[in-house]
């Protein structure tokens, strides 16, 4: 059964929007970091390019990416995301809010890549591809965008899994314990458990490699099994959020699951 690509892409946009609202609120909460005294000061970041020595560009960029301008962009993004969710639910044309969101995402990416993580990258993929699809509103383009998001999500898991095979900690089966045995991403209770249970550590480490590396193959599984794999994925990201505090990864990656499901249906139909 293949529902319309509109359904899957819209569901992806809604879930991704929730994550982006949280990420944007976090930026506002930590606004000091974006001031001239903060670790992401535009006064310093602009030094990376000679272009910002041109008075006009310097003036415009200071206005847009300075503390006030940037926080305004983030607040605008939150407001527009809420409008976007409302428009999708009530079936109103959402091209204008989506365009504004894409502009704020690109501006934010342009301002700095320091501090950005995989969730920011996935959010960029989801919103820009949805925006491209919405330009014409044609079904085939929506289908392509949903397939593109699905393929990018599959690729992200596969690349992440395969590159782990080349890491010493991963091959030795101790990577999960090593990653969690620090204060930045660590968790005291889990590390204590893993230190006394080498087999649990190995199970989690090799389980992560196998789940990620073989993830694209799950697209060819019957729907019931595919849903089990996607549920495992939801649990995987929820546990990462819980243990490591990487909360926005949960929303960004699980948002792609409707598109992954759609991609699987299309692939199985082709075969």
């Amino acid at each position, binding site marked *: 059964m293949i529902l319309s690509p509109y359904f899957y892409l819209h569901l992806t946009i809604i879930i991704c929007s929730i994550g982006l609202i949280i990420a944007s609120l976090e930026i506002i909460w930590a606004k000091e970091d974006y001031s001239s005294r903060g670790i992401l000061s535009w006064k*310093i970041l602009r030094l990376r390019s000679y272009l910002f020595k041109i008075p006009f560009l310097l003036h415009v960029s200071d206005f847009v990416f300075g503390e006030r301008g940037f926080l305004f962009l983030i607040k605008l993004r939150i407001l527009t995301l809420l409008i976007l969710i409302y428009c999708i639910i009530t079936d109103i044309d959402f091209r204008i809010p989506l365009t504004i969101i894409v502009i704020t995402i690109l501006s934010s990416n342009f301002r700095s890549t320091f501090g950005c993580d995989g969730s920011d990258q996935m959010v960029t993929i989801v919103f820009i591809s949805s925006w491209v699809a919405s330009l014409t509103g044609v079904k085939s383009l929506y289908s392509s965008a949903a397939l593109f998001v699905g393929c990018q999500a599959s690729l992200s898991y596969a690349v992440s899994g395969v590159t782990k095979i080349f890491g010493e900690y991963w091959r030795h089966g101790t990577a999960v314990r090593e990653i969690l045995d620090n204060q930045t991403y660590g968790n005291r209770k889990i590390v204590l458990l893993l230190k006394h249970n080498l087999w649990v550590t190995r199970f989690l480490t090799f389980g992560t490699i196998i789940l990620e590396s073989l993830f694209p193959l799950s697209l060819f599984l019957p729907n019931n099994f595919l849903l089990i794999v996607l549920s495992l994925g939801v649990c995987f990201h929820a546990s990462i959020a819980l243990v490591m505090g990487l909360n926005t990864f949960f929303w960004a990656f699980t948002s792609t699951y409707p598109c992954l499901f759609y991609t699987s249906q299309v692939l199985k139909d082709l075969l």
Partner: protein
Amino acid sequence: MEKLLIILFIFWFFVTLFSQFRWFISNQIRSYDFFSLVPSWTFFAPSPGTVDYRIVCKITKPDHYVQHHLINTIVLRNNLIYSIWNPNKRRQKVLVDVVQSFVRFPVKHSSYLPITVPYLLLFNFLANIFANEPKGSQLQFLIYESRGVDSLRDQEVIFVSDCHTL
């Protein structure tokens, strides 16, 4: 128009695919990717981050009185709320990115490190913490890494800056 946009998706996917490998071309693509459109999907791989980075600042006042300050950059997550709301993670990630750029910086060009953006970002951040120090005070910082979620072990200094007059 429609076909063109579909080709764009295919092109974007293959650029992403080829950029995952450490080839010359992938470095070239990333150097022109001003809007971060080409993702890197190698999370915690092949070598995952397993250490914390900490910063210690040495302030030498004009009367040569010396003070050391540990800069608190790590927020301990001892509450479930951090799985939903974690505004500190970005600052911590900035620090990781900055330190890793120091580590990757070619040794033969190390004299240029203090004029790079990552160095200046960190220096600006630290200098503003000590903005109220007397004029002419000097700031020097060191970064060390440590392991352990409970007790800090395997501590090792990985970077010591020059002295900078505030």
